[in-house]
């Protein structure tokens, strides 16, 4: 006997519900992508026919290109520096010491603070210290303050889970501290490091609030996007946004490919040998 709500009925309801969630999540992006091909002057309807001129214009626009390059460079540096710092702190947290739990929480707490508060705090501090706003000074620091806790959260679990006996075994077999790190620990935590690098890259690449306060007269892509939305809202803005989303997705896809490629490679190796 079936219950009052038949099993297949419930499944259908949940299915529809899930589809609604997906639509809700993706409709804004799809709208933007579609409108980036709209041959009209403003963002939005009416539909004036299909065109790729906004893409051509954006790609030829030196300001947009520079903003994009600044964003990529900044994101690369932020990604490398914050992953290195995150790794260093994660290694420091392997030891037991007094107040360890408190220190751990203190490291994660900034994630819960509003970005705008941190941005204002920073610009005030840098100002007091005589540091002028700019891409490679205040903006870089501001991004690092934002991303280092995320880097740590990606790396620490892997470092923490690693059995120190395995490193002791390597030392016992004649490996000095650096060799132990390079041949034993690093290969095992590499997925965490990659995930951290990827995550910090996209966090920095998309960051807006902090950058707005900290960048001064320079541009990143989100800042440039914001400025043209304010001053000259044409479908070119949609084209730039679409390109930016594509780029972010490409980076994530590359990262995932690297991670799964490593895993597949190992599995294939084990299969071929075993």
């Amino acid at each position, binding site marked *: 006997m079936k219950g009052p709500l038949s099993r297949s009925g419930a499944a259908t309801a949940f299915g529809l519900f899930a589809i609604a969630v997906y639509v809700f999540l993706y409709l804004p992006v799809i709208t933007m992508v579609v409108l980036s091909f709209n041959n009209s002057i403003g963002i939005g309807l009416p539909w004036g026919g299909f065109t790729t001129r906004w893409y051509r214009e954006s790609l030829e626009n030196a300001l947009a290109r520079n903003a994009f390059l600044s964003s990529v460079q900044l994101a690369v540096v932020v990604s490398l520096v914050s992953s290195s710092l995150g790794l260093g702190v994660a290694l420091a947290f392997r030891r037991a010491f007094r107040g360890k739990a408190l220190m751990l929480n203190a490291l994660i707490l900034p994630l819960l603070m509003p970005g705008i508060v941190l941005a204002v705090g920073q610009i005030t501090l840098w100002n007091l210290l005589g540091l002028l706003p700019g891409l490679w000074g205040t903006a870089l620091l501001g991004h690092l303050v934002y991303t280092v806790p995320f880097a740590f959260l990606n790396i620490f679990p892997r470092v923490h889970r690693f059995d120190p*006996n395995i490193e*002791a075994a390597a030392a016992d077999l004649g490996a000095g501290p650096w060799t132990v790190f390079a041949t034993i620990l690093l290969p095992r935590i590499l997925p965490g490091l990659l995930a951290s690098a990827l995550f910090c890259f996209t966090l920095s690449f998309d960051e807006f609030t902090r950058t707005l306060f900290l960048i001064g007269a320079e541009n990143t892509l989100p800042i440039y996007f914001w400025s043209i939305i304010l001053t000259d809202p044409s479908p070119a803005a949609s084209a730039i946004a679409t390109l930016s989303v594509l780029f972010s997705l490409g980076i994530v896809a590359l990262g995932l490919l690297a991670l799964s490629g490593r895993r597949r490679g190992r599995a294939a190796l*084990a299969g071929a040998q075993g």
Partner: protein
Amino acid sequence: MKLLRRPDLELIGIDKGFRGKQVLRRVSLEVQPGEFIAVLGPSGSGKSTLLKIAAGFEQPDSGTVRLQGEDVTAVPPYRRNINTVFQNYALFPHMSVFDNVAYGLRRKKVKPAEVTQRVGEALALVGLASFGPRQPETLSGGEQQRIALARALVNRPAVLLLDEPLSALDLKIRRRMQGELKRIHEEVGTTFLFVTHDQEEAVVLADRITVMRDGGLEQVGTAREIYDRPATPFVADFVGEMNWLRGQAEGGVARLADGNALHLPEGIAPPAGALRVGVRPERLRIAAVGATSGARENALAATITRITFQGPSTVVEARTETGEAIRCLCGPADVAGALLPGSAILCLWDAEATLVFDAAGAENGLTRKGELVE
């Protein structure tokens, strides 16, 4: 003339404390070349710390570690010619079995052709010649254990340390690995020092046993010496089973609690005052009430409380007239016929099987196995 040999490993006056707790006190131990020596003790006795100090993972607060005559106290583990088999094997999870075993040789920049050859020999030695391409996660516990052994032995260390090497294996595989370890030790002739809390394992494997307790050495000797002539009540209780009886000595004459004279081994004089008298369960012989004991035999009247058939042997538990619980391990010939719970019996044992300690030994917090069984 006795040939003076240089010990492979010398631990001299080792002291070690952690956070104000003394873990090792004045521990000295010499391990001779080719010896298979066991460090036996309950958890917390300091045996693992002693092993870590020998390997170089811990520094002693004071004392000296010598490896083949050379002072290595301040030498880090990666520069000591000593290798360890870890309790949980600690194989490198991201490397094949071959790369695991080759790891030490590659650190020493051994030529690839020689690496291949020596790894092959080491794998053959532990009976896993074809396992080179396998990944550690595909191996059983016993196989991982052997790979860990091959990975250490391939480096031809002066001394091989084994930290509870078999404790993670189930009983049947453990028995087989005991035999394997002994065979491998005989084949390579390397000095083995292994740490265990399992007295049976120590007795089966080791040429000599070091019994540790509370950070100090209780006794060093062959399995036979330790079993037959334990130096302290702790050793007597920790290695094998022991029946403990109360006694008293006055003017060189020892008596049991029932007042009967106690015959001691030749040349042993009892300490004056209260005594702890020990007899191994298998040294007790059950006789009918009224049986006469031999001239050098001790006798104790008791009542059977329980009989447990165990296959090759039978355990007879009894209570003496003075209230002490005793266990007697009997062969099939000893318990023929009319033994039943409630039967009055006479327990006999040879003077040579009697161990006697002063009462101070009794107060050192022993686990009195004989009385736990009641």
